[in-house]
């Protein structure tokens, strides 16, 4: 599965970082990193944007790993972007 990351709007990553788009996650790296990013994202819009960027980097890094792919597909589906 190939995801075109450049077509995913920044707002999607910010919403995932804030937890307003959420699913039951499978991939451990994501669970642990996202938990930290959520703490940062709630500090304000600039922090939320930065957390969204870090989240996109994480998903791009693990784009080929099946567990991460399933989490991303579930999130995109939840956000109406799949």
């Amino acid at each position, binding site marked *: 599965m190939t995801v075109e990351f450049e077509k995913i709007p920044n707002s999607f990553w910010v919403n995932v970082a804030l937890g307003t788009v959420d699913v*039951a*996650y499978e991939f*451990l*790296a*994501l*669970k*642990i*990193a*996202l*938990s*930290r990013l*959520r*703490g940062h994202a709630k500090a304000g819009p600039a922090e939320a944007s930065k957390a969204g960027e870090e989240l996109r*980097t*994480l998903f791009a*890094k693990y784009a*080929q*790993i*099946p*567990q991460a792919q399933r989490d991303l597909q579930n999130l995109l589906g939840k956000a109406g972007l799949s």
Partner: protein
Amino acid sequence: MKLLDSAQASALIQSGKPLLLAGDEAVLLGLPRGNWIAGTIPYFMTAEGGCQNREKVFVHEIPDVVLRAHIRAYNTSNISRVYSHGFDNGMSAVIVPALTDIHQTFANGAPQFPDFALVPLFGWIAGIHLSELGSTAPKVVDGSTGEVFTDQAIVMHMELRPGYYANVDIINLFEPGTGDQLTFPASGFSADRVFVNGVEQSFYEYMTKNEIDLRPPLVADYCGAHVNVSFQSLDHENKRVNFYAPVFENVVYRLAEPVADYVAEFGKQLGSRASSGLVFSCNCILNYLYAELEGKQTGAFAGPITFGEVAFQLLNQTLVYVDVAKL
């Protein structure tokens, strides 16, 4: 992954294979130089069950899909680069000596280090025989040079063949209970104050007044992953509570539900996780002690019994495992 005698381990080392080793200090120091890293510990989970052994070495053989393996030691000044130094398509194994500044620096700082979680980092905290607490220092070894460290972490960064990936995961039998929400005003390996459902009070008094059992850990929900912080002791003199891993400010913890039968519950959780690509696992010495795992089996998950586990960051009372699979 198996417990070998010194001659068998030496033969594997001399074959040139990258290895992750665990054993008593005297055995490790007698091994030939080679492409291996190690930590001290005399407790193991094996196919035959939990055991202690001061003559043998536990060996995790790195699979052939690893193209390159680089060994590097990290001190408190450069451990923050441990994720950044990992291969782009790889995995990194870390062994940290317990009860040291490097243990504290890694545990407290890892989630804030650059490139955190962007490399599958796994490993364990080296320990000692429990009868030697306070008299012997846990150690890690760089097998390529023979150097022994009590104050540095040793890491093997491994590059995987294209088309393969490493997956680090955990089995944690502890669930957060339904009781009080606990948050801490400061991060660290000990706490004197706590917010109980938002109301600040002495954590030591909360623990003693409620006669809290120190065996089950605190559990935090990390977006579905249950992350434990184990209780080490109550400091009666300074009215503090000590932990085996840091609590983090702004993370919500709950006391864990006790696990009645660890081995039975573990069997239930195994499910489809016993992968044929399993390359590493370790389990916590507190599970070994509290669940009385000596002589009891935990399936395919064999490895050292540790003073802390690493799956991206430091964990407690958790089984960590890694499998390598084809995309």
